[in-house]
C-alpha cells in the first residue's frame, strides 16, 4: 500500500514537471480554455441581427404605402436604405451587396385597403444567411399584424355592435415567451455549449500531447521505466489524472462562472451543481485522452488529426442540429462523445436553470463514459503506451551505453 502511494506521488510529480516544462501542453491546458471563450464570445457578442438593409420599390406612392415603409424601417430587423425606381434597379442594389431584401408595393395598394380588400405587398429576401432572413421576416410579420390591426380597428368603428368587443383590444391576444435564452441572442445560445466543447478539446489535446512527449523522451514518463520494481499502472494513471484535475480547476471555474458573467449569458443554474456535473465530464475526457495516447506517435500529428474533430463534435452535440433529428449511426457516435452529454446537460443547467436531478440522464451517461474510457485508457496504457515507452527507454540506455 505504501508502495502504491509512493508510486502515485512519483507519477504526480513527474507529470507536473512535464506539464510545467512543456509549452505545448500548457497552451492547451491554460491558454486555450482562457482565450478561446473570449474570442468566440466577442465574435457573437452583438447577439441580435438588427437593421438588415432593405430597398423599397414603391409603385403606389400614397400616404398608406409610405406609412408601411416607415413602419418597416422602424422595426428592429429592417433598415430601409432607399427607394429604387423599379425592380431592376433594386435587384442591382442587391447584386452589389448593398441590400439583402426588396420590398415591392404594387400600384393600387391604398385603394385596395379603401375598398375593404386585402392589400398585397411582396418582400424578396436574399437567402445567404438565415439570421438576416429571419430579421426581415419577423419585421414584416410584425408590421403586417400591427398595421393591419390599426386598419381593422378603424373599420370596426363603423360597425357599432362589435366595436367594444374587438376594437377595445385584441379578440384573443397571442403571446410568445422565450425561455432560457430570453432575449433570443445568438451568443447566449451558442456559447454555453461551445464552452463545454472547448473544455473537452483542451483536455483531450493536452493529455494526448503528454503521451506523445513521453514516447519521444522516456525520461519524462510518469513511472520509472526498466526499474526492477514493477510500478502499478493504476497508481501512475491516478497520479496523472490528479494532475489534470488540479490543472483544470481554474479553467473550469473561469469557464463555468466567469465567462457567462463577463458576457452576460443566462446564468440560471446552481454553480455548485454545475461543478458536480463537470466532474465526470472532465474524467471521461481525460479517459478518452488516455485512449488517444495509443495513436499519437508524434506530438505534432495530434493537430492534423484532432483539430477538425471539433467540428464533428459540434454537430454531433445537438447544439446546431437538434438531437431528436440525429439518428442511426450518428446517434450512436454522438452518444459515445463526452461533449454531447456535457453540452446537453450544461446548457440546460446554465440556461434553463435545470437542477442536477433534472439532468440525471446526462449525468449518469457521463459517469458511464468516464468508466468506459478510463478502463479503455488503462488497457491502452497497459498494452500500447507502456511497452512503447519501455522500448524507447531501452533504446536510450543502449545509445548511452555505446557512447560511453
Amino acid at each position: 500500500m505504501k508502495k502504491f502511494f509512493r508510486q502515485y506521488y512519483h507519477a504526480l510529480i513527474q507529470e507536473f514537471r512535464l506539464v510545467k516544462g512543456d509549452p505545448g501542453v500548457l497552451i492547451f491546458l491554460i491558454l486555450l480554455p482562457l482565450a478561446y471563450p473570449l474570442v468566440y464570445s466577442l465574435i457573437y457578442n452583438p447577439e441580435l441581427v438588427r437593421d438588415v438593409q432593405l430597398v423599397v420599390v414603391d409603385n403606389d406612392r400614397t400616404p398608406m404605402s409610405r406609412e408601411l415603409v416607415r413602419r418597416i424601417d422602424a422595426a428592429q430587423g429592417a433598415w430601409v436604405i432607399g427607394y429604387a425606381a423599379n425592380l431592376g434597379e433594386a435587384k442591382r442594389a442587391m447584386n452589389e451587396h448593398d441590400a439583402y431584401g426588396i420590398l415591392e408595393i404594387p400600384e393600387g395598394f391604398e385603394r385596395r385597403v379603401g375598398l375593404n380588400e386585402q392589400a398585397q405587398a411582396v418582400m424578396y429576401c436574399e437567402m445567404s444567411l438565415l439570421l438576416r432572413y429571419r430579421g426581415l421576416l419577423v419585421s414584416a410579420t410584425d408590421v403586417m399584424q400591427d398595421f393591419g390591426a390599426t386598419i381593422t380597428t378603424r373599420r370596426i368603428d363603423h360597425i357599432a355592435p362589435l366595436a367594444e368587443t374587438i376594437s377595445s383590444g385584441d379578440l384573443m391576444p397571442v403571446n410568445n415567451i422565450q425561455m432560457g435564452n430570453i432575449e433570443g441572442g445568438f451568443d447566449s445560445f451558442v456559447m454555453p455549449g461551445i464552452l463545454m466543447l472547448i473544455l473537452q478539446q483542451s483536455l483531450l489535446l493536452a493529455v494526448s500531447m503528454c503521451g506523445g512527449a513521453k514516447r519521444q523522451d522516456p525520461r519524462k514518463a510518469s513511472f520509472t521505466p526498466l526499474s526492477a520494481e514493477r510500478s502499478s499502472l493504476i497508481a501512475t494513471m491516478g497520479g496523472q489524472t490528479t494532475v489534470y484535475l488540479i490543472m483544470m480547476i481554474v479553467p473550469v471555474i473561469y469557464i463555468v462562472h466567469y465567462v457567462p458573467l463577463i458576457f452576460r449569458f443566462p446564468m440560471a443554474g446552481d454553480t455548485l451543481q454545475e461543478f458536480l456535473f463537470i466532474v465526470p465530464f472532465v474524467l471521461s475526457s481525460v479517459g478518452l485522452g488516455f485512449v488517444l495516447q495509443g495513436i499519437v506517435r508524434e506530438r505534432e500529428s495530434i493537430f492534423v488529426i484532432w483539430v477538425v474533430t471539433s467540428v464533428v463534435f459540434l454537430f454531433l452535440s445537438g447544439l446546431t442540429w437538434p438531437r431528436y433529428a440525429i439518428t442511426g449511426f450518428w446517434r450512436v457516435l454522438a452518444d459515445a462523445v463526452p461533449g454531447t452529454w456535457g453540452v446537453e446537460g450544461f446548457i440546460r443547467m446554465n440556461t434553463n436553470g435545470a437542477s442536477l436531478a433534472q439532468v440525471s440522464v446526462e449525468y449518469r451517461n457521463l459517469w458511464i463514459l468516464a468508466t468506459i474510457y478510463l478502463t479503455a485508457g488503462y488497457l491502452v496504457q497497459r498494452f500500447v503506451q507502456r511497452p512503447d515507452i519501455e522500448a524507447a527507454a531501452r533504446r536510450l540506455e543502449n545509445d548511452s551505453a555505446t557512447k560511453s
Partner: protein
Amino acid sequence: MSAFWQIFRRSVLQLARRPIYWVGIFLLPLFCFLLLADLMSDGLPVKAPAAIIDNDGSPLSRQVSQQLAGMQMVDVVATPHSFTQARHLMQEGKIYGYFLIPENFEANLLSGRAPEITFYTNMTYYVPASLLYKTFKTTALYTKAGVASDVISSAGFTENPTAMLMPININVRGLGNPGLNYAYYLCVSFMPCVLQLMIVLITCFSLGQEVKYGSSKRLMQLAGGSIVRAVSAKLMPQTLIWWVIALFLESWMFGWQGYPMHGSWWWMTLSELMFVLACQGFGLLIYSALPNLRLSLSVGALVGILSFSIAAFSFPVQSMYGAIAITSYIVPTRYNFLIYIDQALNGIDIYYSRWWYVAYIIFMVAPLPLLPRLRKAMLNPVYVP
C-alpha cells in the same frame, strides 16, 4: 529527370508512406462531408418534441390541440396538467416548447373577454425553438381567425372576412432557398471550411517535417538552392490531390446532393480550384512567417477553427463589432462562401463577384515576400520542440 520532377516524386512518396497524410487528406475531410450532408439530408429537423397544456378541456380547446398535433414541425409528446409540470419537462430536455390554453378559454373567447394564448419556446435550442415558434404562432392565428370570422359574420358583416382581419399582407419570399433548407447554409459553408483547415494544416505539417528531421537541406540541394522550385515541387502533388477532392466536393454538393446551382458551373469550378491554391498560399504564408512545426500548426489550427465563426457563415459580418468583422476577410474560405452565394445560390453576373476572385490571387502571392525567410529555415534546420 529534372530537379523539379525529382522533388515531385520524392514528395509523392512521402505522402504515400505516412498514414497521417492518408488520414488528413482523405479520411477526415470525407468523413466530415459525409457527416454534415447525411445529418442534414432532411433539410429541416421536423417533429420537434413539444407539449400542450389544455386547462380548458372544451370542444374548442380540444380542436386547437388536435390542429397543433397535426402540424408537420411538431411532435406533441406530452399533455401536462400545469405550467410547472411543463417547465420541468423542458428543463429535463424532453420538450422544446409548450402551448398553453387557459381555463375557460372557449367561454371567455365567445363572450368577448379576450382570453390569452401563450406559447413558450426554449431558446436554449435555437433551431427547434424557431421552428416551434412558427408552428405555434400559425396555430394560434388560425384559431383566432376562425373565431373572429364567425363573430364578424354573425354580426351581419357580410364582406370578405379575410380582408377584414388581415387588411395588409406582406408576402415574404426567400430567393433561391424557398424551403429554408438548412443544408444550403451549413453544408456549403462548413465543408469548404473543413477543407481549408486541412489544407493549411497539411501544408504546414509537410514543410515542418522537412525542417524537423533535417531533410530540408536535401530538398534545397535537389532544387539547386531555389526556394521557389523547392516549394512548388514539394506542394504540387498536394495541389493535385486537393483539386480532386475540391472538385469531388463541388460535384457532390451541387450535383448529387442537389444544393442550389443557379449560376455557371464553370465559375464555381474555377472558384474551387483557386480556393485550393489560396489555402495552400495561406498555409505557406503561416509556415514562412513561423518556420517552426508546432508553432505554425498551432496558428494554423487556431485560424482554421476560428474561421468557422469569423467567416460569418451564420452571424453576419455587418452585425459583428468592427474590429472583429474585418478579420473575416483574412481567411480564404470567406471568399469561397461569397462566391457560392453570388454564383451558385443567387446566380448573378460574374461582374459582381470579381473582387472575390482577386482575393484568391492575393492569398496565392502573399507568401512570396516571406520565401527568403523560409529558405533560411530550410537551409539551417533546427527543431525546436
